[in-house]
């Protein structure tokens, strides 16, 4: 295992996250895609930290995981309140941005 493998894995996870975010209509799925994006970035940080023997990358990976957890908590709360308002989880019903 070398750095390239790690970076390719991270990028793959990142692209899959973007793909998921763009293609799915379900809000939960979009959230999951966003988590994948964050984690793809975290994998890259971790990979750099491992191979360059730099503590900052690890700190950054942990920081991203923390942010992701917080984000998930906030967004799940938002999704719940939206669900209570509209009765479904499709992002098509969330067209209030036009207003």
């Amino acid at each position, binding site marked *: 295992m070398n750095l390239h493998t790690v970076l390719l894995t991270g990028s793959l996870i990142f692209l899959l996250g*973007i793909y998921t975010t763009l293609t799915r*209509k379900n809000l939960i799925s979009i959230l999951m895609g966003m988590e994948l994006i964050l984690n793809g970035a975290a994998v890259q940080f971790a990979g750099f930290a491992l191979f360059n023997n730099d503590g900052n990358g690890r700190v950054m990976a942990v920081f991203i995981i923390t942010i992701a957890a917080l984000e998930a908590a906030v967004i799940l709360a938002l999704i719940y309140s939206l669900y209570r308002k509209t009765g479904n989880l499709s*992002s098509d019903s*969330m*067209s209030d*941005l*036009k207003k």
Partner: protein
Amino acid sequence: MDYFNLSTEHLAALIIFSPAAGFLMNGWISFFNIRFAKRDLFVFLTASLFVFISFVISSYFLFQIFSFGSEGKIPAHLGSWFSVNKIPFQFDILIDPLSGIMAAIISLVSLIVHLYSKDYMKNEEGFARYFAVLNLFTAMMLILILSDNIMFLFLGWEGVGLCSYLLIGFYFKKQDASRASLKAFMINRTGDFAFLAAVFFLIHLYSQTGSLLFFDFNSVNFSLTELRHVHFSGLPVIEITAFLLFAAAAAKSAQIPFYTWLPDAMAGPTPVSALIHAATMVTAGIYLILRMSHFFLAAPFTMDVIALTGAFTSILAGIFALFQFDIKKVLAFSTISQLGFIFLALGSGAFQEGFFHLITHAFFKASLFLCAGAILIYLHHNGDMRKMGGLFHKDRLTGTVFFIAALSISGIFPFAGFFSKDLILIRLYENLNSGPLSVFLFSAGLLIAFITPLYIFRQFFMIFFGKEKGNFQHSQNMYFIKSMLILLTLLSFLSGFLNISGFFTDFLKHTVSSMANQGAAGHTLIAAAAGSLSISAVFISWLLHIKHPAFKEAVIARSGAIYRFLTGCFYVDEFYQKTVILFIKKASDYSALFDRSIIDSAVRLVSEITCRISRLSHSFEKHVVLKTVRLIVQTSKTFGMISRNLQTGYLHNYLHYILGGVLILGSMMIWLDLWRKF
């Protein structure tokens, strides 16, 4: 400025504002035709009250001035008007002996006429209008009298002209009244033109001397004779200015060649004739010359012109008065004649004496006019004296008043006219040794002293004696008329004693200039000569009209053409009609032709060009501007249609945009990085 304080200022302002307030109130009532019980009585009482306030305040100031002596002055600043080229024109009034006496007399005569009009204008349509304009006139006249600078005076000057116009045309439904009012107004406008020109010259002089615009020449620190060196196109400016001022004064005071408006002005109500066209407004011209007497003294040529004009006017109008049959026209010509006499006095440098005669004349002429008004009421406003006669026994009061006023105007001792006329004759006599002009002026003065009793007693005898004629009808409730007649008689009797031992002329000596007294002897001689002339004239008049009327008729019958010429007033009016008015008419015809042919065609050309241009601009508008606008609209619409598709509001669309944006930014950064490296 020692006497200057706030309360005097307010009081002085009240002299003018009180009748002005009366005008506003009665004018409001008249204009909007507000009706209420006892409206006429209300209007009469308020109008008279406002004038009475003026009278009381101006007499108060006169007494105050009197206590200060002949140099007494009360200035008051009412407000600022405008300033041109650093020359301030302000609403300033100045009460000095001259304006103080004048204001008191104006308000007194105005008050008397107001009270008289109560009976005279009874049940007349436009009662409120009449009193409103009478109040306005009083206010304007007082502005004219009291103003401290020439522009403010001009305001009053125009104002009294306007009121004269309104009151002559009071019976505006009558053709001759409205024509007469227009005539008076137009002729006065000619004078106003001269006045304005004089004002411009005064402003011109102001820039060189610093303080000529105002009448207070005593405070001016330069000599007026130095001003004679200021020239305008070869003529001394001071002469031009004085001449223009005199022309304005001649138009206002009905002198040759402007006098023709005054006889026609008799179409107005008789109290108006008494107030405006005998006692006050027509004296405005004389007042102007008196105000500027120092100035006029520095213009000897104009002084000679004034004296000559006065002499000719006086003699001519006296002769006209001898051959008139309308009761008021005789008095009108008599007014012109007496004003001419005053001008003669002014031109000979007898300013104070002229002013004294002005005052006595105001009283006795007003009383003559008011008598005429009373007679006109009895005779149903038919003023032809040939249809009168023997009225003395019907109305002894009016007869006596007329008789006393006639004695006064004739200058018979001890009535007012004697003192004032005598003073002027004495001054003319004293000037005798200064050339042929002075001889002519003195003989003109004597001639006037002879003619005056002739025409006034002709009128007296024609109205009050002889066969009883006329459709006489006693009117009831003429208490106001009668009491005013008695009051005026007293005034025209007593005012002569004002100048006992030079009291009056002394009081004026610092305000009105006076030529050096040449100290000739023989004053009693002059008095006796003038007195005997007057009495002989009365006697001749009596002979002609009472004793031997047949002789008079025979003379008239013999001299047909001359007589017609005389009764037609030398056909001066017709002459003006044929020359000046015809000229003006022709000139206006030509200017109308010019207007139609050249100006109108120019206007048409301009309008044609404008039309063309607008047609062009219309097509430009249609083909270019409109299309451009449409294009712009269409473009923005298209862009809008395209860009509105971006704004779907769907969440994932925005995510696409974000990704696109990130990709573009990222690629740009990479590209920039690469570009910097290579």
